[in-house]
């Protein structure tokens, strides 16, 4: 598989900092809500992910794990 991120939906507080940080603009706040009642972030197009970690470092709740795929 290629570059992608995993978002721990129940840690996410839907603050949107990762959405604003993503240089590819492929993270959005989803329509579903998590156990805390927040619209958690989702990666909408993993194929465009460059595994730059911008989203993960900006996340105050450390909800994002970044994977770099093998070519």
């Amino acid at each position, binding site marked *: 598989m290629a570059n992608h991120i995993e978002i721990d939906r129940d840690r996410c507080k839907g603050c*949107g900092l990762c959405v604003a940080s993503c240089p590819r603009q492929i993270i959005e706040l989803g329509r579903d809500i998590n156990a805390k009642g927040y619209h958690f972030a989702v990666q909408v197009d993993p194929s465009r992910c460059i595994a730059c970690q911008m989203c993960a470092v900006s996340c105050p709740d450390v909800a994002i794990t970044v994977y770099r795929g093998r070519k």
Partner: protein
Amino acid sequence: MDANDTAVFTYPRSLSRTPTHYCPGCLHGVAHRLVAEAIDALGVREKTVGICPVGCSVLAYKYFDCDMIEASHGRAPAVATGVKRARPDLVCFTYQGDGDLASIGMAEIIHAANRNEPITVIFYNNAIYGMTGGQMAPTTLVGMKTSTSPTGRDPIDRGAGYPIRMVELLNTLEGPVYLARQSLLSSADIFRARRVVQRAFSLQSKGFTFVEFVGTCPTNWGMAPVEAREWAQKRMIEVFPIGVFRDREAEAAKASAAKEA
């Protein structure tokens, strides 16, 4: 995930899995993570003692997976002094907000810095008292509205004083080894902040090290998290400039290199 994929960003070992009580978008979480990453990078989790403040980060002892002590309001540097003098082999850091460090704890921080206590102080500055309901803090910007300065901080007519710049203040003392201010307001800044925190922890055995973070308080500023970050980039950075103000080790290395050349 695929077994072939490499995780390039993972949860730090020194951060506990407890979800934080911080409001959405509060950058305390980022500051916590940077401290945990520094502890991991130096491999000192088993011999680290953190000292918690009073304020929003009063519950920080729940979020770090190392030994933690809760100090009374503003007294974290005094507690850290005791820990470090009794057990000089331990790594000791305090984690304090602007209300804790720059207001009630002003005496403790100045004297700990002046004595050059070998501790690391992590200072989260968001220019407001968060936990108690958004009151004016010593670092509140001139003209900034808070619940106790509803028309904006007025240093002249209302005698509310000016924002205190802690790094610059400590930079007048002979003692400290490392003094830096870093912003947490963009991903690029956070990458830089990560190196600054690791540098501070690695210099701790040499003396007093201090890192100030410029952060946000979206809830009490009355802004959305992204908007608060942008506002702070525009307004806070001009009052609290970013940089390494002092690095005695780097200066000494430079001086000895110049001597050899």
